[in-house]
């Protein structure tokens, strides 16, 4: 069954996310304003600059619409900046428009090893991820955030070394890396499964 997935399309790698969804046989479309369409089965918050995407989410009213949808069970995937926008706790100044649901602490640009937010492009890297089902895959980390202190109910899906880099909490998925630059992989299988389940439930009319 094909499900329709909205990709928040103000700024960042939303085009790569759309192309990846298409390659995975799913219909993606750009999402720039509310209200959410009735048949929406999932939403992607792409990588980019979290302050800029958050600003547009707030100004367009999409932030409130997405928060209501997510609280009603709509699956969401946040990559890099998108993960920052979905994190419940944040080190440093908080961008407006965020949807702080997943209970963990996110630290921006934090792979630099120096002061907070000291990470630069020099610290960007590609490395191998270990998934909790035994798979491994490559992860592309670009000025990436670090994930810390996942609270109860959060599943660590993948680690880089000891560091958690992909998390699931209820209907929400967050990744510090960029699956959209690297063909998707295990995270997209899990996210699309959740979207299909949500989409088939939504065959019964729902109010978000």
């Amino acid at each position: 069954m094909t499900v329709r997935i909205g990709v928040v399309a103000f700024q960042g790698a939303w085009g790569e996310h759309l192309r990846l969804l298409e390659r995975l046989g799913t219909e993606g479309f750009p999402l720039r304003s509310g209200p959410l369409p009735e048949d929406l089965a999932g939403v992607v918050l792409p990588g980019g600059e979290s302050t800029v995407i958050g600003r547009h989410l707030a100004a367009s009213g999409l932030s409130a619409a997405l928060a209501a949808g997510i609280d009603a069970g709509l699956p969401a995937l946040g990559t890099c900046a998108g993960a920052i926008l979905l994190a419940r706790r944040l080190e440093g100044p908080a961008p407006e428009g965020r949807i702080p649901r997943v209970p963990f602490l996110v630290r921006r640009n934090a792979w630099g090893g120096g002061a907070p937010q000291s990470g630069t492009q020099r610290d960007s890297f590609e490395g191998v991820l270990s998934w909790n089902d035994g798979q491994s895959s490559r992860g592309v980390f670009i000025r990436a955030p670090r994930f810390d202190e996942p609270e109860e109910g959060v599943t660590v899906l993948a680690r880089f070394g000891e560091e958690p880099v992909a998390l699931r909490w209820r209907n929400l998925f967050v990744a510090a890396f960029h699956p959209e630059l690297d063909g998707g992989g295990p995270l997209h299988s899990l996210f699309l499964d959740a979207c299909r389940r949500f989409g088939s439930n939504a065959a019964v009319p729902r109010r978000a």
Partner: protein
Amino acid sequence: MMNLNVHAREERNCGAEGGAGMGGDAAVPREVRCDANASGNGCPGTDDVPCPRVRRGTETLKEGLARMQVGGVIMDVTNAEQARIAESAGAVAVMALDRVPSELRKAGGVARMAAPERILEIREAVSIPVMAKARIGHFVEAQILEALGVDCIDESEVLTPADEEVHIDKHAFSVPFVCGCRNLGEALRRIAEGAAMIRTKGEAGTGNVVEAVRHVRAVARDLRRVLAADGEELVSLARELGVPVAQLLRCREAGRLPVVQFAAGGIATPADAALMMRLGCDGVFVGSGIFTSSDPRRRAEAIVEAVAHYDDPSVLARVSSGIGEAMAGTDVRRLAPEERLQERGV
């Protein structure tokens, strides 16, 4: 040339194959994706388990940084306060400079890389990426900028060129580069040299968008020819454009320029920014246009909105209102040939 880059090159190559040295054929891709299928290259990866080695400075990472800027506005700033204004107005990155291009024009003389302390001051002030300009061909300025930890280097015609024949070998760096172009040939030569991002040259410091429009249209016109050409026409087209055939194949595979393409050079209003987006650009650089205007913060916010909602005239009408005076512009036709920055670096 070697000291700074040895580290990056080793990691990029997975300790397996040697990359071409400085001065090697720029058309040969320098990225060596650790190929798990190639036997005997010392890579511990297999078909199922990728190479465990951490790699930095790969083409994926360099072009990926540029992809994260799409739909955004990159603003020229000359101090920490301007950088903070740019960030809070919604810039995706800032370009750290001693002087904005319109001031460089007035000052005359030789325009060089910004002072390191200024770049560091600006980097301290913001969490968004910081870019800085190196002179065309000045690979030592670029190494200094890389050592300072800038996120992207603009090999820029706005500064006085250090080399009138040869551009920087950008494959030799871990940090991504953006370069200007007036047409497809220039764009693809810069990409062949390793640029991870392309921008129009326009005519910087004029507040006049006409040259940026000319350049983005020229790129689009030649791209249509490349996409429509028969396979057997590609070699002569490559010769005509002065680029490697491999670059034309990359364009055909992508159906567009293979890297992110921004507008730059003369953008002064929200309408200018939206025009460049409508013409197919992925985002815009605004140089002198913001901090030489009467209300930089409002203008910066308005241009950010205009880039995100470039195809919605009602939003553009709203954000174009009440933002004060734009910078005074220059008629590009009145510039003497030696004042035209776009002629630098072909």
